[in-house]
């Protein structure tokens, strides 16, 4: 069982990485794009806006080293 956990943990780290919010946010952005696009709305802007918001949000609270 432990090798299975290690295997899952490796892939989690590899794909999701240090900040799971980036991966979840990316999935939500693409989901919202699909939702609105299939209802005929112009949805191309959703993912870039969410991506940039996520990037800023995950960097805003970062503290300098040693502080």
């Amino acid at each position, binding site marked *: 069982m432990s090798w299975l956990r290690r295997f899952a943990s490796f892939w989690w780290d590899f794909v999701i990485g240090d900040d799971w919010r980036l991966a979840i946010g990316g999935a939500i952005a693409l989901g919202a794009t699909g939702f609105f*696009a299939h209802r005929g709305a112009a*949805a191309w802007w959703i993912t870039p806006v969410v991506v940039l918001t996520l990037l800023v949000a995950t960097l805003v609270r970062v503290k300098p080293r040693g502080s």
Partner: protein
Amino acid sequence: MVEALTIVLAVALTRGWHSVRYGIGAALLALAAVVALLGPALTLLPLATLRVIVGFLLLSFGLQWLRKAILRSAGYLPMHDEAKIFEREVAETRAHAAAQGSMDWYAFTLSFKGVFLEGLEVAFVVVTFGAAHDDFALMIGAALAALIVVTIVGVIVHRPLSRVPENTMKFGVGLMLTTFGTFWGSEGAGATWPGGDAAILVILLAYTAIAFGLVAWLRGRLPSAELALGEAA
């Protein structure tokens, strides 16, 4: 690839090339198997589904790289110092007991892990870009060309490639992966980009401008002493 070369050189120069060669060979075979299995499996999916999956993976992976590259450029994370990593690897390798018999399993495992784990990132990019563009030959060719260049340079200089501007390269790759992830993912989800493929360039420029803006803003928040330290590193 640069990181893999650092590990391989550190192990090989300390414990000899014999087992390291087997480690590299086994890792390259394992990476080829990953590409050979994942690539065709992905192409079985409908194009729209494939683009959403590939888009998500590229976004997730690209954003991680970009975030780290921004933090490094701004001085919040230490720059990747290949020379320091090389020294640490050499010290750790020396501290380990000498090999018994013809096969040095410690050297084998270390070189296998170094090449496989670092190469997995490259394999991942090859598989996702190859599947989304339906051109595996071109992506594999490009990855092999990069591998050959790094190997040749490594053989010639016989020391870690500490002068390669690794963070700048990762910054660029993070921007590209995030851009393609945004474009393909949105298109697969059903969005239509104004201007078609030309939108890729606009997204890339917008992300680049915001990323540089974030670096400048983060640097502005650093105490001046720390900033000077980061620049000197």
